[in-house]
């Protein structure tokens, strides 16, 4: 098995075309609140696992770092995440950047979606905007998006 072979299977998955694209200019990074949004199907131990076709998101508390992956795809290496969650959700690194003053604040909450979706309309029209509004309400200025 090679990483290249698995990647080749994902190369041509169709994605929605956005005719009108937004481009948000954030505040200065040193004053901004940063959250992570991952498509690794992460959840806390006491949260519901992801269903096979689950367009919803889970709110991840920043201070409770017991994240597990509930991803349904077998097409990625999970050992790196198992040994160091920063491989997927680099919160220790963001903490260090905050303490150095390079970013304003690490958000108190982060989000995770399930990335193994073939029909993205629900995420585009429903759970995506809902998650973004939620983070906006929490004062988030910048989202770092991480896949698996």
């Amino acid at each position: 098995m090679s990483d290249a072979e698995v990647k080749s299977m994902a190369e041509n998955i169709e994605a929605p075309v956005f005719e009108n694209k937004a481009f948000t200019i954030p505040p200065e990074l040193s004053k901004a609140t940063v959250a992570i949004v991952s498509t690794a199907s992460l959840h806390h131990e006491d949260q519901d696992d992801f269903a096979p076709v689950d367009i919803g998101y889970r709110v991840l508390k920043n201070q409770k770092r017991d994240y597990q992956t509930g991803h349904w795809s077998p097409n990625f290496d999970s050992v790196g995440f198992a040994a160091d969650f920063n491989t997927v959700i680099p919160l220790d690194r963001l903490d260090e950047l905050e303490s150095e003053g390079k970013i304003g604040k690490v958000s108190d909450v982060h989000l995770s979606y399930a990335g193994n979706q073939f029909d993205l309309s629900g995420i585009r029209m429903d759970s995506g905007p809902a998650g973004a509004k939620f983070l906006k309400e929490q004062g988030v200025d910048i989202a770092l998006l991480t896949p698996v």
Partner: protein
Amino acid sequence: MSTLAHVFEFEGIATIALGSVRKQIENTAPPRGLLCDFPLGRPLGRPDDAKFQHRVLSHAFSLLEAEEPVLEEFEEPVAETGTEGLVCPLPPRSNDDLLPVIDEIRGLRPAYDRAIAKFGNRAGTGRVVSADGIEAAVESLIRVADGTPWKEAGIPGIPSRVAQDIRGYYEISVLGLTDHIPAAWSGTNWFFTKTLAGKVVLAARAAIGDSGAKRPIWFYMAPGDR
């Protein structure tokens, strides 16, 4: 990933999307994209390497200075393919009265428990089968491989999910058997090519597929290139 980026930008949140698949991130064109040629599952590149992870983040956050959509490539690829092979000793037979695969599962349990104690259970078992249920889960897949219709074999959940727990049990055991974090995919390759349980999963997958079951039931029991 890129869909979320576009949606979040519409809501007033600036985004930076990391991507590991070149054509995918090029085709989907997130507002700010950083192509990182890293193994799937490791978007920050190297586990337990803070300096490397910081270099990725530094490049990613630098994209915020762009005044229009931007796609750049991180200059340090991580070429871990798992083809180097994992030297990971399987425990010797300890009970000849047991099926060899059951003996294998029991032999790995101390390593699994050590790894869970050290790292937590982030990707091991527990989706539908706990560590204590791995033996029964594998026995159910043996019945499938031996000809029992999959719906009558007592599989404790959707086969693809059960297979993930079995694979997770073995891959996390690797962390308890080695003194380093293995290269990406090497644990997976070890499971499917060197262990008896891996062979059981593949045999059951083939049997379910041959039975005419719907593809999602069996296909995702193993990576798609198998």
